C-alpha cells in the first residue's frame, strides 16, 4: 500500500480522524486540491456548500454552539479569507470552537503580492485563538491536531490554518492521525485551587442576599445540571446573561431573568442589592454591567472562569476561581450548606410584578399591531420543549430572547459579543445541521436577514428545515430606537425599502406567508411548524415598538426606562 499521500489528502484524513463529518466550505483556486480529494471522501465528509464565506463561518458557529463540537470551515485564499474575518471575530468574542482552513498561494510566492494572496496570519491574529501557516505538508501532522485541541479546549475559540498550495500537493508519508492532547505553553484546564473553593463556599454560606449570574461558560462546560443543583441546594436565585439564558429552565422558580441593558427589572435591581454576586462563566461585558462603577456596589464578588485573564479585567473579584465551570460547581456543591432566602426572594416579587404589568403584559397582549414579544412567545409555546432559538441582531434579537422559553441546554444561539447582523440565517442553518432532531426557530429582522440572505440557497439545496420568522418593522429598528430615544427622532438612514420577502423565499423554493394581524398569527405559526421543511413568516411589526426595559448605554444598571417617559422608581 502506498503510504505516501498528498497534503490535501492528509488534511482530509486528519479531519476524519478528528471525528469531523461535516464541513462548511466554498472552493477556489488556492484550495482546489483539497476539494479534489474531498470528491473521493464524500461518504465520510460532506461539504455544505454555502453561498458566501461569511455564511460558512456563521453556519459552523451555529453547528458548534448547538452540538459542542468544533465547527470546520474550508475556503480559498484572498477574498475568501477576508470574508471569514467577521465570523472569526464573532467566534472569538463568543468563545466558539472553530477550525477555519484557508487556502494560500504556494510558499515560493508568499510575500510577492501574488494573485489572491493576502496576509491571512497577520489579519487573523487579533481575532483568533491561534493561527498558523502550513508551508509544507509535513507541518500538517503537527498543526491540524494542535488546531483542534486549541480550538475546543479551555475557553474555546476560532483557529485558522493557512494552507499553502504547495503543501496541499506535496506528498508525505502517512502513518495515521494522531490527536493532540498536550501543548506545553497552553494549559486549558488548570487544577482548581481548593483554597479558592473553600473561600467561595464560605462566602456563599455567609451571604444574606446572594445572587448567581450564569453565563455562556456554563453552557460551554456542560454544567447546566450542576448549576441548577447548586442553586437548589443553596436556595440562591439565578440570573443569566443573554448567552447563558438556556443554562436553567425559564420556568425554574429560582430563575429570576436576564441581566443587562434589556434584561429583566428584578434581575438588574437584584444586582445592585445583593451582598454576594457569584459570577460563573461570564465576562462582565459592558452591555451586562452598564456603568461599572455602580455595578454590584453592595456585593462581594466571586468570579469563576476558565480564562484567568478575565479576573479583574472589568470587575475586581474578592474571590477568583480559575477553572472549568463544571468541576468548580461540583466541588462547591459539596461545600455549601442548604439554605433558603425567603426575605431576599420576596424582594424580587414587586419588581417582577411591575415588569409584568408595565412591559410584559402589553407586549404579550397587544391591542392592535403585533409585537415582537407576542410572536416569540407564541412560537415558543407552539414549538414546545426543546426548541432552539437562533436570532439575528437588533430589536428582534432582544425581544425574541426575552420572550422565548428555554427548557433544554443549548437552546439559544445569538451573536452576543460582536452583535453581528447577518449572523442568524447561516447560524440557524448550521444549528439544524448540527442537531437535526431539534426544532430551530430563527428570528430575524428585515435588515439583518438581507446581510446573509444568499444562504437561503443552502436551505434550497440541502432541504434544511428551519423556521424563519422575520420580525419586519421596515426599519433598522434597534438603531431607530436609539434615534427615537437619544437623537431627537432624527431617523437618519434607518428606514428600509424592503423586497417582497414572501416572493424572495418562494424564489428559493421555501413556502412563506405574510402575517399582518393578531388573528392570523396562531394559524400561521401552526402551518409553519406543521410544514415538513423550511418556512418563512414575514410578520408585520409596528416600527414604533421599542424594546423595554432599557438601561441606557453607560448608565447604571438600575436606572431603567420603562417607556419613553417613565423611569423605574428605585
Amino acid at each position, binding site marked *: 500500500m502506498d503510504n505516501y499521500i498528498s497534503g490535501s489528502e492528509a488534511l482530509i484524513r486528519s479531519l476524519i480522524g478528528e471525528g469531523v463529518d461535516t464541513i462548511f466550505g466554498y472552493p477556489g483556486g488556492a484550495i482546489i486540491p483539497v476539494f479534489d480529494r474531498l470528491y473521493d471522501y464524500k461518504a465520510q465528509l460532506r461539504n455544505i456548500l454555502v453561498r458566501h464565506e461569511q455564511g460558512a463561518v456563521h453556519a459552523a458557529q451555529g453547528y458548534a454552539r448547538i452540538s459542542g463540537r468544533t465547527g470546520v470551515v474550508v475556503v480559498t485564499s484572498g477574498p475568501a479569507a477576508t470574508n471569514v474575518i467577521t465570523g472569526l471575530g464573532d467566534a472569538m468574542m463568543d468563545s466558539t470552537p472553530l477550525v477555519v482552513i484557508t487556502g494560500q498561494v504556494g510558499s515560493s510566492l508568499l510575500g510577492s503580492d501574488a494573485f489572491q494572496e493576502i496576509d491571512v496570519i497577520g489579519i487573523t*491574529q*487579533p481575532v483568533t*485563538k491561534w493561527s498558523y501557516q502550513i508551508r509544507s505538508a509535513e507541518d500538517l501532522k503537527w498543526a491540524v491536531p494542535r488546531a483542534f485541541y486549541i480550538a475546543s479546549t479551555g475557553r474555546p475559540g476560532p483557529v485558522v490554518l493557512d494552507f499553502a498550495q504547495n503543501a496541499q500537493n506535496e506528498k508525505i508519508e502517512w502513518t495515521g492521525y494522531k490527536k493532540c492532547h*498536550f501543548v*506545553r*505553553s*497552553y*494549559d486549558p484546564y488548570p487544577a482548581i485551587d481548593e483554597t479558592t473553593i473553600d473561600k467561595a463556599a464560605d462566602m456563599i454560606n455567609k451571604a444574606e442576599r446572594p445572587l448567581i449570574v450564569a453565563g455562556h461558560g456554563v453552557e460551554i462546560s456542560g454544567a447546566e445540571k450542576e448549576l441548577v443543583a447548586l442553586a437548589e441546594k443553596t436556595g440562591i436565585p439565578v440570573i443569566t446573561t443573554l448567552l447563558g439564558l438556556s443554562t436553567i429552565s425559564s420556568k425554574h422558580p429560582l430563575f429570576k431573568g436576564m441581566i443587562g441593558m434589556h434584561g429583566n427589572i428584578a434581575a438588574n435591581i437584584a444586582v445592585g442589592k445583593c451582598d454576594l454576586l457569584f459570577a460563573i462563566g461570564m465576562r462582565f461585558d459592558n452591555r451586562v454591567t452598564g456603568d461599572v462603577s455602580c455595578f454590584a456596589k453592595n456585593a462581594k464578588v466571586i468570579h469563576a472562569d476558565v480564562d*484567568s485573564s478575565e479576573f*479583574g479585567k472589568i470587575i475586581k473579584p474578592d474571590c477568583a476561581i480559575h477553572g472549568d465551570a463544571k468541576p468548580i460547581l461540583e466541588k462547591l456543591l459539596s461545600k455549601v450548606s442548604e439554605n433558603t432566602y425567603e426575605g431576599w426572594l420576596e424582594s424580587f416579587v414587586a419588581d417582577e410584578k411591575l415588569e409584568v404589568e408595565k412591559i410584559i403584559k402589553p407586549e404579550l397582549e397587544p391591542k392592535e399591531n403585533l409585537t415582537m414579544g407576542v410572536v416569540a412567545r407564541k412560537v415558543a409555546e407552539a414549538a414546545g420543549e426543546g426548541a432552539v432559538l437562533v436570532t439575528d441582531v437588533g430589536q428582534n434579537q432582544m425581544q425574541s430572547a426575552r420572550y422565548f422559553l428555554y427548557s433544554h441546554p443549548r437552546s439559544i444561539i445569538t451573536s452576543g459579543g460582536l452583535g453581528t447582523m447577518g449572523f442568524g440565517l447561516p447560524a440557524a442553518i448550521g444549528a439544524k445541521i448540527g442537531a437535526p432532531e431539534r426544532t430551530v426557530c430563527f428570528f430575524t429582522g428585515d435588515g439583518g436577514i438581507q446581510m446573509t440572505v444568499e444562504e437561503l440557497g443552502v436551505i434550497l439545496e440541502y432541504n434544511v428545515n428551519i423556521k424563519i420568522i422575520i420580525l419586519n418593522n421596515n426599519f433598522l429598528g434597534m438603531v431607530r430606537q436609539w434615534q427615537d430615544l437619544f437623537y431627537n427622532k432624527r431617523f437618519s438612514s434607518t428606514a428600509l425599502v424592503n423586497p417582497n420577502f414572501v416572493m424572495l423565499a418562494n424564489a428559493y423554493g421555501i413556502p412563506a406567508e405574510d402575517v399582518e394581524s393578531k388573528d392570523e398569527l396562531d394559524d400561521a405559526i401552526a402551518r409553519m411548524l406543521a410544514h415538513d421543511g423550511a418556512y418563512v413568516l414575514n410578520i408585520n411589526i409596528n416600527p414604533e415598538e421599542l424594546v423595554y426595559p432599557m438601561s441606557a448605554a453607560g448608565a447604571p444598571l438600575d436606572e431603567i426606562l420603562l417607556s419613553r417617559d417613565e423611569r423605574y422608581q428605585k
Partner: protein
Amino acid sequence: MENKGTLYTVTVFSENRVGLLNQISIIFTRRKLNIESLSVSPSSIKGVHKFTITTYTDHETVDKLVKQIEKRIDVLKSFYYTDDEIVYQEVALYKVPTVQLLDERNVETIIRKHNARILEVTREYTVIEKTGHDNETEALFEELKQYDIRQFVRSGRVAVTKSPEEYVTMYIEERAKQKEEAEKQWTKTNASNL
C-alpha cells in the same frame, strides 16, 4: 505634561514561533501602550525565546496586559517588573568625528569619567560604547553632544530578575511532568476504547 506613569519591564517567554512578536505588539497597541524599548533573544532554556519590553503605564494596566500576553497560545509565561526588582542594562553607541578627539583633550576625560570605551578608530570617525542605565547613556550623550555626534543608537533593555526563584524553569519542569501524565492518561483511555 501628561503623566507617563511608571516604567515597567515586561518579560515574555515563548516557544520559538514565527509571528509572535506581532501577536505581542498588537496587545500593546490595543491598550494604547507605547513600547519604549524591545529586545528579543534566546533565553537560558533551550528553544525558549525571551522578549524584554519596556513601557510606561500604571500597575493595573500592566497587570492586565501581561494576562493578555500570557493568554496567547505560544507564550509560556509573562511577567512585569519595576526597576528595583531587576538588574538591567542597555548599550549605547556614539559615532563622533575623530578630529574632535584629536583636537579636544577633553573628550578623553569624558570617556574615562563615564567608564565608556572606544570600539573603533579610523581616520574619519571613532565609535564609543557605553553600557549602563538609560540615564547614564543619556548623560554621556549630553556631554558628547558638543563634539558633533554623527550617529547615536541605544539598544533595548535587557534584564534579569533579582529573585532567587527561576519561575520559568520551574514552570517548564512542571509542564514536562504534566505532559507525561497526560500521555499516560491518554494511552489508558485509548486502550479502554479499543
